[in-house]
């Protein structure tokens, strides 16, 4: 049997920036979408305001729009297939209502529109919504971090760094399919959302600090250690080399032996 799909905490702007994962033709195949930031999603947990709802098809189908302040999700419930509780809740509410809901992605119509079939839903307060927004943001920033690494490093290396094969597969697939990763735009959105200032640390200071802190025995820091930690901080390998060269030239560090660096 298949594992139960985890419920992704995901913002609407990323959810809608996605593609359906092509089916391989097996029976009872799970629907997945792949987002630009490498999330392969079947189930979601989302929070926001239900802005409007429509009861259609002779009172047998409900559609609605949930706004999470980054964009909107299309949700739906079917009188015959959705849990009774979900159906009657959606049937009775008067938007706007703040909700937390879990559901599965599916496509509908000729044009393959993206939709969330609600599995469970509840009204919630702003505290729960804040909690959800933070969880979604942390999840996204973590993936962005891995994606940055994936742009410059081999998969084997990332596996050795402890990232799971499954998440790496999705991230490499996203890079291949979307070409432009738009990492900076995504990060900017997150920072604006939480009012985090755009101030960047000086990259040379970061590397210099790494060389100092990775000097465990007083003989200097190993090049590989510096690179590995710099990658985690979001640097690309070539950029690290440039900065090390520049630090050497300016006499801020020296190379006591090959590929060992020490702060002066």
């Amino acid at each position: 049997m298949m594992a139960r799909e985890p419920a992704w905490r995901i913002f609407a702007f990323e959810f809608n920036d996605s593609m359906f994962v092509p089916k391989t033709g097996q029976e009872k195949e799970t629907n997945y979408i792949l987002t630009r930031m490498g999330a392969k999603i079947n189930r979601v947990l989302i929070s926001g305001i239900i802005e409007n709802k429509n009861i259609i098809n002779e009172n047998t189908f409900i559609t609605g729009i949930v706004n999470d302040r980054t964009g909107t999700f299309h949700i739906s419930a079917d009188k015959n297939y959705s849990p009774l509780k979900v159906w009657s809740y959606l049937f009775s509410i008067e938007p706007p209502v703040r909700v937390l809901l879990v559901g599965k992605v599916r496509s509908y119509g000729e044009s393959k529109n993206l939709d969330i079939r609600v599995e469970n839903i509840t009204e919630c307060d702003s505290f729960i919504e804040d909690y959800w927004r933070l969880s979604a943001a942390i999840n996204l920033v973590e993936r962005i971090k891995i994606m940055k690494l994936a742009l410059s490093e081999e998969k084997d290396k990332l596996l050795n760094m402890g990232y799971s094969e499954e998440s790496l597969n999705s991230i490499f697939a996203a890079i291949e399919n979307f070409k432009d990763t738009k990492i900076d735009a995504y990060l900017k959105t997150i920072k604006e959302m939480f009012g985090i200032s755009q101030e960047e640390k000086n990259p040379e200071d970061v590397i210099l600090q790494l060389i100092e802190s990775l000097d465990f025995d007083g003989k200097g820091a190993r090049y590989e250690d510096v690179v590995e930690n710099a990658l985690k901080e979001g640097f690309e390998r070539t950029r690290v080399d440039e900065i090390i060269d520049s630090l050497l030239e300016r006499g801020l560090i020296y190379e006591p032996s090959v590929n060992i660096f020490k702060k002066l």
Partner: protein
Amino acid sequence: MDDKEIEKYVEDLYKELDGKISKEELRKIFNIWLSYNYSPEKVKEKILQKYKPGRILKIGEIKEEMKNINTVGKILTIKLTEKDGRRTYSGIIGDETGTIPFTTSREMPFKKGDVVRITNGYSGYFKDKLRLYIQQNSGVEKLDNYKIERVQTVPSKYTIDKIEGKSRNIETKMRILYAEERETNGKKRVSGIAGDNTGTIPFTAWNKKLEEGKSYIVKGAYAREFKGKIYLTIDENTEILELNEDVPVNEKIITLQEAIKSGIATGWFEGIFLEVSDDSGLIARCPVCRKILKGTECPEHGKVTPINDVIGKATFDDGTASGKVIFLRNEMESILQKNFEEILKMVVSTPGIPVIKEELEKRILLKPYRILGKLSVKDQNFFNITIFEIKPIGNKELSELKERLMGMV
């Protein structure tokens, strides 16, 4: 050092020397040695050496730089090394008070397990370890009728994250996060979860009193591995001491995916309950094995009078994986804020309604919680978590998340 303490030493010495030396005399000698900046323990040794030469020391009593040591111990290891024609025996001997490594160039025709008497040895430090040296003029003799059953080996100190399946003779400081007492074959068994600031571990203790919330230092426990997870066993020979101060426990949240992948058995998880199962409610258990019964027949114990219990089951999801969690009676009582009697009353007064499920839904469904739980992985894809502690996400947890996000971008 005040007079009272000195008097205690004098008293001890007086008894030890069978009253051969008057207390007054002892007090005088004691104070003289003390004025030469010797520690009271050392002074005591010096006095004993002088007035009671040849007394047999327990291994645990051997301190640094003692002369004329007489002791009896069991040989735990012994080996002969030959270098440049010089033969050296070395090994470890011990008794019920401790162990000590020994070295000698004297012939030692003994084997592991032999009990030997050593006279006129001396002690000293070498490579940071206290050792017993046996000289050419020392006496060494094997005692055939002297039994030492149990040897107190010095436990190695561990933090909980460093305990491995093969770890033996563990000394660790830990706080009991959860404890449940049962009786198996007349033996009292406490099982639960212990933690320190490096992690948590499930434990089982035999005939020991370990209370939830209290902190202990445990000496001589051992670990075992079962289905890829590590458990700590505290048996009758393990020494436990209650600590006055709390051992700090790390509530570091781990993801379910990490826990499954790395084989971590217990930990704090943070997530949301997506569903409460229909089979939450009252259950009947076999009074002997506590198995959940369908009727009054236990597959192992035949016809029994079942005991009532309550159980809750729900789906818990932390965004990385999703699994079934189990609330046992204690946790049901705490989450429903009712004791078992009140829960029973509630069920009886609302016939035909799955009231326990509904009450549980009211409190946990689609709400974020932190849970301390034990993971049992059924196969790669399915796992159960038994909950030992549960707490709602509050403002504190929210600010922690905010800080975490700030640190990341």
